[in-house]
């Protein structure tokens, strides 16, 4: 056990970073040695920070290979108040983040097939099918995912995660701690927030039992402080997009979002966002944009289309369209505003209850309106994500209101966040072309 723990720590602190740097060095020398014909890319120079991002995430997954048996492992939903688990030494795995990686690498159809062969309907969320398929086959692009000792599920992003994690609990036969966040219609009632707070206190006991140690209040305060700072730093990064030209694209944002989701509450996460923020501010100062020639500014709503994210952003960038903001990336900046280190559990209850997907449509419209105004957008693309009901329901009405109230042009694009079989490429690109033509 001690040996395994030592290996886990070494993987995270020494070996992982070493391998990541080696890999980055190899990639750099490969690209240098390759004879390249000059290509006119519509994008501005790539962010330097992205190297550090890759290293950070690679190390995290690399370390995960040695986590089983070394430290308690928790599989966590993206909206779960992970601050509660960090002081107990859990290695947190984010199946959603892992599924996004599978989406980018186009591994979802094969993994989903395995889940479908067991009887899971293709109409279910593609993240869940990917995760279940990975669990069933043992296949993963990140080397190895450690088995969970605890499943931590918060329904603030959707109810589907509960059905998914419930199935995982049956499969792995480990405890499932649930934070059931009542949906906010209008305003959250006191007894709703109290319910969430009570659940957090209850789950600490279960988590302590699994981790084999008690939670120290000071440690929780510290992690909460770090998480709040991380969220604020992320907000600063996103805010750079308000400048003209925006120094990066919201598509970059989707990738750079990984640490605030999966490494929230760690110093490594915050150090990274300081780096990124400084680079973005520098680019703003020097007038370097995410696009060479930013002519139109767009908002993206809903999850990204992981398997086509580069393709689509290039298509739009070639005509001068940049995504300067996204409701999805913004969600992680908003959460921080309610987090209060002087009341970790109480403030977590409030913060995690009020995430965008757990609040009603008027609230959603308000956020989209605010983003559209603050970032000066002239158009929006609402991704009608087949896999994500809570995000997609209401988009048709939201679209109408954005058009009539803000005078922005809006495209509703039907696709899926990670299953390419649900996206008709030709038809989608046709719609985008027509949308862009409307901006003459």
């Amino acid at each position, binding site marked *: 056990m001690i040996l395994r723990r030592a290996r886990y720590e070494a993987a995270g602190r020494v070996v992982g970073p070493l391998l990541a740097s080696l890999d980055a060095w190899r990639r750099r020398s490969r690209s240098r040695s390759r004879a390249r014909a000059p290509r006119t890319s519509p994008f501005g120079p790539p962010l330097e920070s992205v190297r550090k991002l890759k290293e950070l995430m690679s190390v995290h997954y690399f370390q995960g290979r040695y986590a089983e048996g070394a430290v308690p492992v928790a599989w966590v939903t993206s909206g779960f108040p992970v601050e509660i688990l960090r002081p107990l030494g859990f290695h947190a795995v984010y199946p959603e983040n892992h599924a996004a990686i599978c989406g980018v690498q186009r591994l979802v159809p094969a993994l989903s*097939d395995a889940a*479908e*062969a067991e009887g899971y309907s293709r109409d279910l969320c593609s993240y869940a099918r990917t995760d279940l398929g990975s669990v069933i086959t043992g296949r993963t692009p990140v080397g190895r995912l450690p088995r969970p000792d605890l499943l931590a599920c918060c329904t603030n992003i959707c109810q589907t995660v509960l059905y998914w994690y419930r199935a995982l609990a049956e499969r792995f036969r480990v405890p499932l701690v649930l934070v059931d966040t009542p949906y906010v219609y209008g305003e959250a009632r006191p007894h709703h927030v109290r319910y969430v707070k009570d659940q957090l206190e209850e789950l600490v006991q279960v988590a302590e039992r699994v981790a084999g140690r008690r939670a120290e209040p000071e440690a929780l305060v510290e992690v909460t402080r770090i998480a709040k700072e991380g969220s604020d730093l992320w907000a600063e990064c996103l805010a750079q997009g308000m400048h003209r030209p925006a120094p990066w694209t919201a598509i970059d944002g989707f990738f750079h979002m990984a640490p605030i989701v999966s490494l929230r509450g760690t110093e490594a996460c915050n150090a990274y966002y300081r780096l990124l923020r400084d680079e973005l501010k520098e680019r703003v100062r020097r007038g370097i944009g995410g696009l060479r020639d930013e002519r139109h500014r767009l908002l993206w709503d809903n999850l990204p289309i992981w398997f086509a994210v580069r393709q689509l952003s290039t298509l739009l960038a070639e005509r001068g369209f940049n995504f300067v903001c996204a409701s999805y990336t913004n969600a992680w900046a908003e959460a921080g505003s309610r987090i209060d280190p002087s009341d970790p559990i109480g403030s977590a209850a409030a913060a995690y209850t009020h995430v965008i997907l757990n609040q009603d449509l008027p609230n959603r419209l308000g956020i989209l309106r605010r983003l559209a105004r603050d970032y000066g957008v002239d158009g929006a693309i609402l991704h009608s994500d087949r896999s994500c009901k809570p995000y997609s329901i209401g988009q048709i009405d939201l679209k109408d209101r954005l058009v009539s109230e803000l005078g922005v042009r809006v495209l509703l694009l039907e696709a899926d966040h990670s299953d*390419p*079989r649900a996206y*008709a490429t*030709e*038809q989608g690109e046709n719609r985008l072309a027509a949308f862009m033509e409307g901006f003459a």
Partner: protein
Amino acid sequence: MSAVVAIGVDVGSTTCKAVAIDADGRILAHLVEPTDPRIEPQVERLVAGVRGEAGDLPLGATGYGRKRVEAGRVLTEITCHARGAFARTGRPGVVVDMGGQDTKVIRVGPGGEVVDFAMNDKCAAGTGRFLEVILGRLRVPLADVADVARRAARAVTVSSTCTVFAESEVISLVASGAPTEGIVKGLHLALASRVAALARGAVTAGAEVFMSGGVALNAAMASALQDALGHPVRVLPEPQLIGALGAALAVLPRAA
């Protein structure tokens, strides 16, 4: 000289089949026609056609239009394909029946009984219609399909999961210069992979896999399915008549 003792009709959505069998279950006469919307007169004509000189005989009916036939027994195509296949093979196995609008995978038990079955979902992309529509667009006659596919050096991937979208995808492929043979081969692979996904649960290590239904007459389809399943596939003799055969067997005098 054997006599006709029973008749079976399979009133499919695309074709209507009638067979006349003897006491040993051998098909003595058969007729196949595209299904007429006016089913009753068509069935009467086909039954008379296969009956020949014999008088009134027990009649079994199956297929989409089975309830419109005045038959002694009316059974679903699932049960009839299982019986018909078993009569031909005498062995348990998995029957993959690919019809015009429907694909079924049937697990047949040691006595010819249905152990389990699965059908494709409401969408046509896993059926013969998929091929028919797109081959029509490519102007490749159904009779030549197997040869065309065989000539292909490599398959051109057709990724759309919807028949309508696949049609436009194929048009783009042709416009961008992809060879027709490769596209035809790719279409078969796409269809085979969907059918294989349906069949995967039933096809265990030692299972025998048989093909029935009209689409089985297309040799390229059988071979594509074999590749997609990674398992040998045997096309039953007279695959298109298996359903009607099963229906006739169901009304054989003193049938088991």
